[in-house]
């Protein structure tokens, strides 16, 4: 299986606290990997480093592009609609307005987004906002998909639907990393990697 994401010796400290210590990781094309670990183990930090939005102190991340990154906290414009987000993010990925909307609407429909409600993000429920967050990560047709607990706020149907989609992404050859605490769903992924908390934290040094 061709590796689409390779993390080699990645370390990250915040002040005196070591969050990640020489982490190695590889995710192949069409592989869905769950990243688990206790709170503060550095799962989100590792994902941010993989996405390139946070620099690591040591190590290298190699990845195929484009990368789709769905952060835990959806970074969205509160007073823009879903449609406007799709156009804006789609244009960044090189899509025309029409293509961005066509593709974006398709993704949103798959996750049961209420397309008839043309409201601004501020007026969306947490789950609906998260659907948009996920759609923006999928918009550029990513080779690597990094999902940081993407189902937060989803209703049960959408939650099940999300895990069903992992199978679709697998078939499309996308390398998927899902940060999750949902141990019941771990049979839906190809591999589970538990990120251990660094000893410096277990011994009470640094942040809790």
């Amino acid at each position, binding site marked *: 299986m*061709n*590796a*689409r*994401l*390779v*993390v*080699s010796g990645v370390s990250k400290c915040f002040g005196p606290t070591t969050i990640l210590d020489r*982490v*190695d*990781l*590889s995710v*192949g094309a069409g592989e869905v990997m769950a990243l688990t670990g206790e709170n503060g183990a550095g799962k989100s930090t590792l994902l941010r480093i993989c*996405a*390139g*939005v946070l*620099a690591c102190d040591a190590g290298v*991340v*190699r*990845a*195929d*592009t*484009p*990368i789709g*990154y769905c*952060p835990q*906290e959806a*970074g*969205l*414009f509160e*007073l*823009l609609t879903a449609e*406007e987000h799709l*156009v*804006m*993010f789609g*244009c*960044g*990925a*090189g899509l025309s307005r029409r293509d961005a909307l066509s593709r974006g609407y398709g993704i949103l429909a798959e996750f049961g987004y209420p397309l008839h409600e043309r409201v*601004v993000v501020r007026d969306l429920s947490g789950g609906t906002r998260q659907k948009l967050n996920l759609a*923006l990560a999928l*918009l*550029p047709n990513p080779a690597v998909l990094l999902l940081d607990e993407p189902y937060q706020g989803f209703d049960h149907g959408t939650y099940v639907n999300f895990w069903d989609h992992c199978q679709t992404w697998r078939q499309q050859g996308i390398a998927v990393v899902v940060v999750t605490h949902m141990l019941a769903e771990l049979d839906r992924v190809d591999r589970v*990697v538990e990120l251990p908390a660094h000893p410096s934290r277990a011994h009470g040094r640094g942040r809790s």
Partner: protein
Amino acid sequence: MRLIRRVVLIAEMHGRDLIRRRAALGLLIALPLSFYLASARGDRRAPVTGGIGMAFAVSGAALFSIMSARDVDQRLVLAGYRPVELLLGRLGFLGPLALALAGAFTALMAIMSSPARIGIVGLGLAAVSLQAVPFGLAIGAAVPRELEGVLIVIGVIGVQLASRTATAVSKALPFYGPQRVIEAGLEHNGALLWPTMHTLGYGVVLLIAARVFIAPRVYVRKPSPPEQPADL
């Protein structure tokens, strides 16, 4: 062509965002208006005070436009935008908006203050508007949080408001040039070249500063393709 399309799109989206902030839009007009009207009767320097009010309003709008979108900006860079496109997009919306505001205030001042050279006063107000946008963007890109940004804007423009003479401190501030242009419009004579050059030079420096400061905040590391896989 691609750059222009993307910059126009960013400008359009910021426009849509700001238009939906009706209260903020109202304050953008009300703030300089109250500055001006508070001194319009009996003070012949009222256009200068109104111009300072415009500097507060437009700088504030630019500051919040960049600070409230920090997380989204980095995501947009990850999506494929360049930091300079995000800056130019904001400039592309806020600049014309500020110029429209300057036009409206010039008309108001022509009626209420009857300055000697209204065209020059209008030029000065336009200079305030165009200076305030890169000023707000530069501060917004440089400081870590909104409070620091607001305090710097209040501090710099407040000192500008307080210093009426051409002191060294006054000359070092960004709105010195526009202020002198407005003052020149209140008289039948007064230098224009130096204040205009001061405005243009300062504006360029502020834009470069904004570009330099925003880069590390929205930086996205582009990975190279994988070579050899490794396992945890």
